[in-house]
C-alpha cells in the first residue's frame, strides 16, 4: 500500500480504496502526532452505517478524547481489533494500522491527496 494512494480529510482521517470494493479508514501521521500517546480507541461495530463527515469512532489520548469523522458514507465491514488492546500501534504506524473498513461506499467527504493535505497541515499551523 503506497502512501500516495491515501486520500485525506480536513479532519485528519485517511481513506484508502483497497480495490476489492472495500475502503480502509485511518488517521494521518500528523493526527497521531498531535494527539500524543493514545490510550484508548473506540471503534464502531461491524454492520454500523457510517456517514461522511459524521463521528463514527473516537480516540483517547492522555490529553483528550477526539472524535473520528468518517471520510465516506458506507457500511462498516471490518474493524481493526488489534487497536482495542494496543492503541499505541496507531502512534507507531498510523498509516498501516487502519481503524475500520467500509463497503458500499456511496458518498465521500471532500478529500485531498497527500501533497494537498501536507500543504493544508502546513497552512493550518
Amino acid at each position, binding site marked *: 500500500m503506497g502512501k500516495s494512494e491515501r486520500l485525506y480529510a480536513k479532519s485528519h482521517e485517511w481513506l484508502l480504496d483497497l480495490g476489492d470494493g472495500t475502503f480502509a479508514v485511518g488517521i494521518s501521521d500528523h493526527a497521531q502526532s498531535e494527539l500524543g*500517546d493514545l490510550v484508548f480507541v473506540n471503534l464502531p461495530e461491524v454492520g454500523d452505517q457510517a456517514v461522511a463527515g459524521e463521528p463514527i469512532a473516537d480516540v483517547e489520548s492522555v*490529553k*483528550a478524547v477526539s472524535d473520528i469523522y468518517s471520510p465516506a458514507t458506507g457500511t462498516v465491514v471490518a474493524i481493526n481489533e488489534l487497536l482495542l488492546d494496543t*492503541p499505541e500501534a496507531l502512534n507507531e504506524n498510523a498509516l498501516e494500522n487502519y481503524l475500520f473498513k467500509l463497503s458500499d461506499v456511496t458518498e465521500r467527504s471532500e478529500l485531498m491527496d497527500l501533497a494537498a493535505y501536507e500543504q493544508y497541515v502546513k497552512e493550518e499551523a
Partner: protein
Amino acid sequence: MKLIFEKSVPGRRLSLLPDCDVPVCKLPESLRRTTPIGLPEMSENELSRHYSALERRSFGVNNGFYPLGSCTMKYNPRINDEMSALPGFADIHPLQPVHTVQGALEALALAEQLLCEITGMDHMTFQPAAGAHGELTGILLIKRYHAERGDTERTEIIVPDSAHGTNPATVSMTGMTAVSIESGPDGRVDLDKLKAVVGPKTAGLMLTNPNTLGLFEKDILEITDIIHKAGGLVYYDGANLNAIMGIARPGDMGFDCVHLNLHKTFSTPHGGGGPGSGPVGCKDFLAPYLPRPVVEKEGEGYTLDYERPLSIGRIKTFYGNFAIVLRALTYVLTLGREGIKEASTQAVLNANYMRKKLSECYDIAYDYTCMHEFVMTLSGLKKEKGITAADIAKALIDRGIHPPTMYFPLIVPEALMIEPVETESKETMDEAIEALLDIYKVACADPESLHAAPLTTPVGRVDETAAARHPKLRYEG
C-alpha cells in the same frame, strides 16, 4: 509512603468515637457480615502523623499560587468555615420538623435571593452537588419544558467547540444529542455557523460567558435571540462567573437557566477539599420543574414545598450540600454589593496583567484583552525545542507553583490556561511571571532538562500514558 492499611497493627486501638448514648440495637443475624471488616488498626498518634504526612505531600490554595484556569482557585476565608460550623447549622438533621430549623431554611432562602440577584434569575435550587450535576439539572429542566409543551422533536443541544467537556457529556446523559459548532476566528461563537445549525430540532444552547478562552461573547444578545427565535432555551455554564459578578447578569443576557459553582466563584473549598455545590437558577417559567422540595415563605416563617407535580424530581438527597451554601452565603454577605463587583474587576485586571507580561515570551492564543483567564499555546516551542505544555507545567511544580490547566480548551494546541484570581497579590503574580519567563529561557537553552521535571516532589514525572493504558484501580495488599 505506606498506605494506612500497611501501617495497621492487629489489636492496636484508639478512642476517637464517643460512648454510645442510644440503646444498642442488634441487626438480624441474616444481615450481619460474616467476614472481618478489614479496617486499619492504629493508635491516635500514628493516625495523626499519617494524615499530617499526607497533608505535607499535597498542594492547595493555602500552600501557594494555584492558577488553574477555569477552576477559580481563590482563597477560602476562614469566616466561611466559622459560620457553617455554628451549632444551629452544624448540629441539625435534615429530617427534623421544619419548625425546628427555621434559621437554616431562612439561610437557604437568603442565599437563593442573593444569588438570583447576582445572576438575574428568579428561582434557585441548591440540590446539585457540583457543576456537572448542575448542568444535568439545568438541561433536564429544558427537556421537561419542551416535553410539557408537547414539543418532543427538540432533541439537539448546541455546544461550541470551546466548551467544557461536561457540556456535551451532560447532553448525552439526558438522552439528547450535542451539536458542536466551530468557534470563529476570534475565538467566539460564530453567528453564521450558529444560524446554520439551529432549527426545529434545537432544544437549546449551552454557553459559558466569558468563554473558556477568557473572552467575553460580545454578541451574546444576538446569540440568545437566535436560539429563542428558533424555539430553544439558553443555558449558562457558571464556571466563569468570576469575571462578571456584579457587572453583568446572565439573566439580562437572555439566559434562561444557569448553574453556579459555589466551590469556585463563591470561595468554598474546592479540589479534593470539597464537597462542591452547583445550584441551578432559572427564570419563572422554568420554576415549576425545579427539583423538589423547594424552600417557600409561609406566613412569618419558611417551609419545604413537596407539592410540585411538574418537578423533575429529586436530584440529590435532602437539600444539597447545605454547609457549602452557608459558606457561599457568608462570602456574599462579607463582600457586599460593592465587594462582589470589586472581586470580579480585580480578577480581570490580574489576568490581563499576567497575560501582558507573559506575552513577552509566550504565544497567547487569541491575544485580545481577556476577562478572568487567558490561554497560551506552546506549539511553537514544541516544534522548535520539543518542549510541551506539560513540560512547562511540570517545571512550575519545582518552583512551588501549581500547574495551570493543560490541554484545554481543545481548540488550542499545547494549551496552558492561566487564571490568577483576585485574591492573589501583585508580588505573587510577579514571582509566577518570573518563574514562567525563566522556565521559557531554560526551555530554549536546555530543553532536555525540563523533560524530567518535577525533581523536588515526593513523586517525580508520572507515566500518564502507562497509567491510562494499564490502570491499577484498587489496592491489592
